[in-house]
């Protein structure tokens, strides 16, 4: 546990070393948030409700999604860092350290996510909430469920990125597949447009998939529109995906390690 804590602190400090990058990222985030907010305001000029979202919900979506995208690492080096180590063979060093690779990487990722929450997500969300009239959580319990859901979203996001990285054990060029998964993740997580805006039943199907558990689920909980109308149900589905994906990651890592040993590195 102490090791996890130290690794998480290193993960945090790695991002804290570049305050200029954080400020620039924050600026770009807010700028995109403004653009999307204006677009959705123009959309809600023509209608008052889309898939359960009213204009306040849509604006809450904008600023929550823009804040969470750095927290759940919709972009960034963590999509390919381990893959590069697999390709260069450095992963062999990682594997004979006396720590579990998946657990160690997760601890670092928690540190990374913590940094993004404090310095990216919260400041830009506060700014968005001041500038626009957004939906607030119905009560303290909803807010608590939202926070819990964000934590699970970080686990799901980590587990998906871990699996994508592991593809490098089998594929010589991981970049193509990585870009494809990234594309699917952007669209199906609700980053591009709220999944509730898709025509039914497509919207509900997308909201039940693991990618939605990265981003859309916490936002749905915040605005009071969880899938199936049940916050507890939405959280349980999210936990299910987190567990399934983390376990798959362990199995795939074991298979990849086996291959590495057979080939002699």
């Amino acid at each position: 546990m102490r090791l996890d804590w130290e690794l998480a602190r290193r993960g945090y400090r790695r991002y804290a070393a570049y305050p200029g990058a954080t400020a620039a990222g924050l600026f770009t985030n807010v700028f995109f948030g403004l653009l999307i907010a204006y677009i959705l305001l123009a959309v809600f000029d023509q209608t008052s409700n889309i898939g359960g979202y009213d204009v306040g919900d849509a604006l809450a979506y904008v600023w929550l999604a823009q804040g969470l995208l750095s927290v759940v690492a919709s972009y960034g080096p963590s999509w390919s860092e381990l893959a590069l180590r697999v390709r260069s063979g450095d992963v062999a060093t990682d594997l004979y350290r006396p720590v579990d690779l998946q657990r160690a990487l997760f601890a670092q990722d928690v540190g990374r996510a913590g940094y993004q929450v404090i310095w990216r997500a919260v400041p830009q969300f506060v700014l968005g909430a001041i500038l626009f009239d957004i939906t607030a959580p119905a009560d303290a319990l909803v807010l608590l469920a939202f926070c819990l859901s964000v934590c699970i979203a970080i686990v799901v996001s980590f587990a998906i990125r871990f699996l994508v990285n592991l593809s490098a054990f089998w594929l010589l060029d991981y970049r193509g597949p990585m870009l494809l998964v990234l594309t699917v993740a952007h669209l199906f997580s609700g980053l591009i447009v709220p999944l509730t805006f898709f025509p039914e039943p497509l919207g509900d199907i997308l909201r039940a998939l693991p990618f939605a558990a990265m981003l859309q689920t916490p936002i749905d909980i915040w605005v009071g529109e969880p899938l199936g109308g049940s916050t507890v149900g939405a959280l349980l589905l999210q936990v299910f995906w987190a567990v399934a994906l983390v376990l798959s990651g362990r199995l795939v890592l074991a298979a990849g390690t086996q291959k590495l040993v057979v080939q002699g590195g």
Partner: protein
Amino acid sequence: MAELGRIYLRLIGARARSQLEYRASLVLQIFASALLTLLDFVMILVLFENVPELDGWTVQQVALLYGIAGISFALTDLIVGHLDLFPQMIRDGTFDQILVRPLPSLLQVVASDFSLRRIGKILQAVAVLIVALAAADIEWTLGRAAMVPLAVVSGTLIYTGVWIALATIAFWIVDAIEFVNAFTYGGNFLSAYPITIFGRWLRNLVLFVIPIAFVAYLPALYILDKPDELGLPEALQYASPFVAVLTVLVARLVWENAVRHYRSAGG
């Protein structure tokens, strides 16, 4: 000038040939990058699933904006997209090497990469533009037909100028390059929508400061023969080529000025 053009073509030709060595990987990357960029258009389609029009613009008309802006931006990305990595050249001292070579520094930086996978972005935008031109119910005249390629060329020059001018921020703040993304990627994102939906400050910004409104919105008003809700002078609808040349000239001045003030990390 012709000599510089020849050198540029030789340099990027070498970059392109090295990528063509890995044919299968390149094809997959072109396909993947086309899909990733297409997401912005998917967003437009999903929005129009729920409403018939956006501030008086139909989905076909918005697709025209997306197509013109998208091709321009993809071409720009092919030419100068690697400016994203320019801060790295300053950090590791590669830029100092560039300064001692007998070629303009801007030319060398621009010619330092040429990512063929970005062709995927061009292809998807061309596809959207063709469908939009066919579906948008345009009363074709010679002038309108000529405006389509003219807008694409002008748009490419405008985006390129903006990208170069803003990238010079790396001379002062090395790790702040993502700031530039707001106006490059962000500028392209907003070009796909009628600028009337954005706040007044943002409209003035893209009309008079960072002239992104001249990429797609103003030429499209002319092509579609749409009334201008902002009451701007009609001449602005034909002004994109002039604005483009002006933007590139300003960008060059900014770059040269920045290089003059550059102090390398080595003292």
